[in-house]
């Protein structure tokens, strides 16, 4: 489907999409699609007609402000035109992830705090176990603590992103199911990759290849297997997110089928949001383990890496939650209201009821001024 319009119209629609961030994703898509059709028909009438239409529509930001923000009641657009169905630009994927964050419950600061503190501590201790083995830090224990903290943060993050009405921090069956699912899927992927790599190197050796050739085959097979395993893991991430967020109707099969045809968009999201941080995390580990002498600098690197790794985890949570919505066909809700939200009427009335006697007492204490 090629429905691209002349550049000024595309720019207008891009700005309008940004300016309509207060709407849920399905309503925003509906408004933008209707205006895309409007501009396409004007464009077909000739350049001047399109220019006139753009002038008549006015500034995208002003137009966006005129739309009723109350939500609900709009006809759903045909599925083929919904955002996740079509190939998205990287900026559009990032905008979807940002919309997921804006619609999430409050509490990501705590998720970030848990991740940063636990990752800094476990980074430093695990590096110490490698660089200074004589200290006797138990690497297995440190890794176990790290995994527990990350799983707790991921579970809370998915609940905040997908089920903000649920308590984010709790150790229930959903957290256990999510943790078991993630650990199992990761273990199966790694075990499968190791078996494939070993098998490939055995075949290469049996074929009479030199040691260098066997190593090259091993490296190539390892890379391909790693890419395939990562792809498989990406396709079940929405299901894992659903487990954590107690979206019981969404199965692994639904995750698999829902991500079909959307891997391009998913990979763009990973490439833009997760991969750069992951590469930085890898580089920091390399410097800490191979280049820098162990000392105060290592502690500083652990601090930086803790923040970077927390960024990886939070980006992954938000991206997987966004992909869950794409795969399940659920729109990204309108953003959660911040401090500007209208206060709850019942709470205001309660506050008034408490204040009234106080104000009355104060009035009674005031002396009556002489006329």
């Amino acid at each position, binding site marked *: 489907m090629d429905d691209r319009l002349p550049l000024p119209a595309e720019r207008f629609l891009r700005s309008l999409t940004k300016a309509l961030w207060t709407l849920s994703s399905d309503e925003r898509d509906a408004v933008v699609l*209707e205006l895309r059709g409007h501009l396409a028909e004007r464009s077909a009438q000739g350049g001047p007609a399109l220019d006139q239409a753009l002038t008549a529509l006015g500034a995208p930001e002003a137009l966006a402000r005129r739309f009723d923000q109350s939500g609900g009641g709009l006809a759903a657009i045909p599925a083929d035109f919904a955002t996740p169905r079509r190939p998205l630009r990287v900026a559009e994927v990032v905008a979807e992830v940002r919309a997921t964050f804006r619609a999430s419950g409050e509490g990501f600061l705590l998720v970030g705090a848990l991740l940063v503190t636990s990752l800094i501590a476990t980074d430093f201790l695990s590096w110490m176990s490698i660089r200074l083995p004589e200290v006797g830090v138990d690497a297995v224990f440190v890794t176990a603590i790290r995994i527990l903290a990350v799983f707790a943060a991921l579970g809370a993050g998915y609940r905040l992103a997908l089920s903000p009405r649920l308590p984010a921090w709790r150790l229930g069956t959903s957290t256990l199911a999510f943790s078991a699912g993630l650990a199992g899927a990761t273990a199966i992927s790694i075990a499968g990759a190791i078996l494939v790599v070993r098998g490939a190197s055995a075949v290469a050796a049996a074929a009479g290849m030199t040691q260098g050739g066997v190593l090259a085959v091993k490296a190539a097979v390892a890379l391909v297997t790693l890419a395939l395993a990562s792809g498989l893991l990406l396709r079940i991430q929405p299901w894992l997110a659903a487990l954590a967020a107690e979206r019981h109707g969404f199965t692994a099969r639904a995750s698999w089928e829902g991500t079909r045809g959307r891997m391009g968009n998913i990979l763009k999201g990973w490439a833009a949001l997760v991969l750069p941080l992951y590469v930085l995390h890898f580089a920091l580990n390399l410097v800490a383990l191979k280049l820098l002498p162990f000392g105060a600098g290592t502690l500083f690197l652990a601090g930086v890496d803790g923040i970077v790794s927390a960024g990886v985890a939070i980006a992954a949570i938000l991206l997987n939650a966004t992909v869950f919505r794409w795969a399940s066909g659920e729109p990204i809700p309108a953003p959660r209201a911040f401090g500007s939200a209208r206060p709850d009427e019942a709470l205001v009335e309660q506050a008034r009821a408490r204040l009234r006697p106080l104000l009355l007492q104060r009035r009674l204490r005031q002396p009556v001024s002489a006329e």
Partner: protein
Amino acid sequence: MDITSWQSQLRKGAAELVVLSLLRDGERYGLDILDSAGGSGGVLSDGTLYPLLTRLEREAKVEARWAMADGARIPRKYYRLTAEGEALVAEMQRAWHEFSAFVTGAIEEPRDGRQTAPSGRTIPALAD
């Protein structure tokens, strides 16, 4: 004297009536509504129509469906009146006729220094 603001208020009030009245003839999509309204004296423009249609749809005065026209690459959103919208537009048209008759009567050229509103109530002529 600048009457732009006053004209803007007039247009806002009339735009809803124009759109609902055009939909009385059957379902239409946005561009069709705009073209049918013609110049519409500036009552409707590209920038006012779509927010208005969205509001009317949210308020269930109109309902919409998406359909692909022959040879089109982008679907159109067709609007039609709901039962509530039908009743509303009938009421609005009746009120508009009364209102416009009153206003027209009130602003007619004074013949004897006084104007007569259609209701029979006389109102003082505007001072020069």
